[in-house]
């Protein structure tokens, strides 16, 4: 078989453009969040932004390499890659360097990296390969157990490294399982209850009722409007509204005051200046002070003067919120949604099951990072330290997200060749 190089026209340029926009914007945000008048040079590798620039270079280079690799490689080497990342994870447990209480780092030639980041695409590849196997049906109990094992193994090791956030990310592969046959209500009900339960304590109920109504409306548009479906959507919406209203009641009347207080601090409603409440409070102040238009590049005082801890890594969204305001934040969210939609769209048009499953895994992982990270920054979710893909400072994360995404771009770029091959 001849090496099949992707033609420029067969690469999904929209995905690629969003990737570059994100990486560039991320670099500017990191620059803004650690900016000092004394170190204005963006190429200064003694600073986070300088190092991030180097990592962007490395990531783009490896991304290009991936585009040149034979697409069969990923299918063929899915299990070895998975195995390698598992070995690295175990190695970290033994040899790892502890950074900020998490022992998930490994030093290789002066570079520190987090194998947990690479385990994400390793696991995505393995699960795609496993479920795309000939005659594999997800309804099979054995298949379900093996799938669960493939996901839970890296998760467990990472949990042992004290990296709760990274471990949770693997839960996002439930989206893949759902696509491949896991009953949908599992996913849906659990997710909705969790999200709206938390929101009910934070946001005035009226907003939630509106949100539920909008959501129900969207389903109405998307689903086939037969009588049964319409009734399900309306019923679910109403149930959700009742649930949202009852959470507040339960919270105020059933819990003891000190229990309420703890939850409030966790939710950022009560300010606990010494603990995690400080981060969230400062994060909300930074974002809230951005207003509609934002303060402008390098004008964010909360960022510049280090009020938000972990500004360039987990709380990078504060910089967007403060310097680019509501418009910038919403633009970012819409762009992110566009990327996710594009990945799902591309996944569904794949001829190979492997490609499709991998695409869903990519979308799931990216969404999970987005939801947890922004939710935390906005004070809607507890502080769980996971990076915002393509934005947060950190070489391992950037490189692993790049590889994750570019493997999918490579797989997708072969779609036309497949067709051509089929008809030639």
């Amino acid at each position, binding site marked *: 078989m001849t090496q099949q190089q992707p033609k420029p026209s067969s690469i999904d340029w929209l995905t690629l453009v969003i990737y570059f926009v994100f990486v560039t914007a991320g670099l500017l945000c990191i620059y803004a969040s650690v900016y000092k008048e004394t170190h204005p040079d963006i190429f200064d590798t003694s600073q986070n932004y300088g190092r991030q620039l180097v990592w962007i270079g490395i990531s783009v280079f490896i991304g290009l390499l991936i585009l040149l690799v034979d697409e069969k490689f990923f299918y063929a080497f899915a299990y070895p890659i998975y195995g390698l990342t598992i070995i690295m994870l175990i190695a970290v447990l033994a040899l790892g360097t502890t950074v900020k209480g998490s022992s998930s780092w490994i030093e290789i030639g002066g570079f520190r990296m987090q194998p947990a980041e690479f385990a994400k695409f390793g696991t995505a590849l393995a699960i795609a390969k496993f479920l795309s196997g000939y005659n594999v049906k997800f309804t099979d109990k054995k298949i379900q157990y093996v799938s669960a094992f493939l996901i839970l193994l890296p998760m467990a090791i990472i949990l042992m490294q004290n990296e709760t956030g990274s471990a949770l990310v693997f839960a996002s592969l439930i989206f893949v399982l759902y*696509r491949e046959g896991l009953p949908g209500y599992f996913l849906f009900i659990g997710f909705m209850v969790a999200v709206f339960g938390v929101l009910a304590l934070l946001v005035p109920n009226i907003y939630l009722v509106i949100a539920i109504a909008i959501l129900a409306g969207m389903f109405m548009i998307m689903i086939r409007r037969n009588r049964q479906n319409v009734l399900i959507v309306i019923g679910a919406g109403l149930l959700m509204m009742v649930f949202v209203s009852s959470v507040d009641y339960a919270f105020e009347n059933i819990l003891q005051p000190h229990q309420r207080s703890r939850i409030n601090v966790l939710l950022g409603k009560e300010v606990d200046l010494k603990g995690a409440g400080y981060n969230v409070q400062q994060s909300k102040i*930074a974002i*809230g002070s951005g207003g*509609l238009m934002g303060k402008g590049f390098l004008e964010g005082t909360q960022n510049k*003067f280090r009020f938000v801890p972990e500004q360039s890594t987990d709380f990078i969204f504060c910089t967007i*919120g403060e310097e680019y305001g509501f418009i910038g934040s919403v633009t970012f969210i819409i762009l992110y949604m566009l990327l*996710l939609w594009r990945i799902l769209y591309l996944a569904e048009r794949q001829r190979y099951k492997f490609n499709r499953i991998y695409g869903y895994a990519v979308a799931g992982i990216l969404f999970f990072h987005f939801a947890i990270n922004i939710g935390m920054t906005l004070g809607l979710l507890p502080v769980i330290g996971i990076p915002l893909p393509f934005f947060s400072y950190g070489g391992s994360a950037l490189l692993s997200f790049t590889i994750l995404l570019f493997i999918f771009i490579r797989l997708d770029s072969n779609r036309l060749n497949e067709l051509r091959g089929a008809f030639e």
Partner: protein
Amino acid sequence: MDNQIKRYILFGIFCAVAIIYIIRLAVLQLMDDTYLRSAQQNVLQEQTIYPARGLVYDRNGELLVYNDAIYDLIVIPEQVKNLDTSEFCRVLGITKEGFLQRFEKIKRGVGYAPYRPSVFEKQLTIPTYAAFQEKLYDFQGFYVEVRTDRKYRHSNAAHIMGYIGEVTDREIEKSEGYYRMGDFIGISGVERAYEEVLRGKKGVRYILVDSKNRTQGRYKDGQFDTPAVAGQNITLSIDQKLQALGEQLMMNKVGSIVAIEPGSGELLALVSSPTYDPNLFIGRERGNNYMRLLKDPSKPLFNRPLAAPYPPGSIFKVIMALVGQQEKVLYPSTSYGCAGGYHMGGLTVGCHPHPAPLPLRGAVAVSCNAYFCNVYRTVIDNNAYPNAEAAYKKWYDHISSFGIGKKLGVDIFGEGKGFLPPSTYYDKVYGRYRWKASTTISLAIGQGELGITPLQMANATAIVANKGYYVTPHIVKTINGKPNPNPEYQNKHHTTVDTAYFDVVIDGMQDVIERGTGRIAAIPGIVICGKTGTAQNPHGKDHSVFFAFAPRDNPKIAIAVLVENSGFGATWAAPIASLMIEQYLTGKHDTRTYLLDRMLKANLIHKNDSTATQTVQY
């Protein structure tokens, strides 16, 4: 379910989360501006620039009050690192327990935050400050803030100066944002009355700080900063030398001296005895000293000349003489006999032996009780009025126009009204229309219910000196070189008695000094007009009272002296007044050493304790 549909369901979930986040963003960024304000509070540190408080001079330009730097030790708890506690305690001169206590106290304070500066120790002594300054680098998280406190160059005039202290919560509230916790404010005397003049205007500097409270530069290059404006300097009308002499003369005596420049109403001296050192009210011991002075049975904090009412005694006869003439019931030639006192029915007001009968001038000179009882009777029983009540009301108005029975409006706090009984007072005691001249006869000689403050006595003296008017007595002559802006301190208040009636009374007062009861006050070469008084005191020995003005033509000083429980006016009050007049007019007070010595050595309160000093020196 169709697998294609799942894509939409998944994406629906993604979008639901995205929409929730957008709503949240809208709440944070568009609907709630508390975050914007919090952000400003985060980074903008408003630093107060304290202005220098205005200086205070005496009428001759001698500096009385200035500012002195004080050093507060400030701590930012979060920044305290690697502290050698024992060394720190040694330098500061505190114990380990004291160290921990201070930290506990700071933590319990209002608005405490580990990243905010808190006062660790107030007002370090200069040696401690010096020692500390050398070691500052070893004590991370601590620094010294410089503020100013008052310093009084002389240890007198405490009641005039007043003092400053930290503002109370109520004052902070009342000031609508001017004062902050720990600011100084004038609490009494000139410091309080002229607080707004003296304090100046605080400046503000906006500093950008980072999360560790480290300075990151000026906010917008300081375009919103305002500089501090120093307080205005004040020149008192007080003559420091005269004031000092007055306090010296009043040592070991209880009483007051008030000296006024008659033409301008400027107070030249205002002595309240016993007194205290104003420097007791600065520094770390302020609170303790205050408590001690407050508990002192001799009441050094009480501002007697302004607040304490006394029966004026014989000096009131001068006013009676004027009112009688104005009411046309008394003429310079009017004579009354004196058979050892005033007798009317069963009532007798005694008098001392003197030639009789006398005309008005002579009656003033010898201070004849019978004479002025007759004057009072003719005023109250005057047929021009339908009844005694109407006549008394007229009399009341006359007396009142001399500034008696009301607050004059002096510019420092603590002034009392004294007491001039209105007709309704007697209505209450005797019933309406059931009292007459004889019932209230003791008013004629300045006794009875009358209560007059030494300030009112001095003011009445100034009225006689001015022949019919006074300018409200005041203590601040100029503010920043310009005359006191209060128009009250320029206006002349005319009495109801015409100028023409004053000469004969003044003649009598001159006689008092030249051949009457006040001969001891005479100074060669200066024409003094005065009047002695011996105010009967129901609670003990009589008060020695004297008032005078000099020189007779174009008077420069009007003075009232009252020495409590010390006997005749001529014994103590008159010599003291005489020495004061001499000091003010000639700049000397030691020409009559025998008199000076006798006054200085006299101890009228500590009878068995010759070492006691009057000025409280803790």
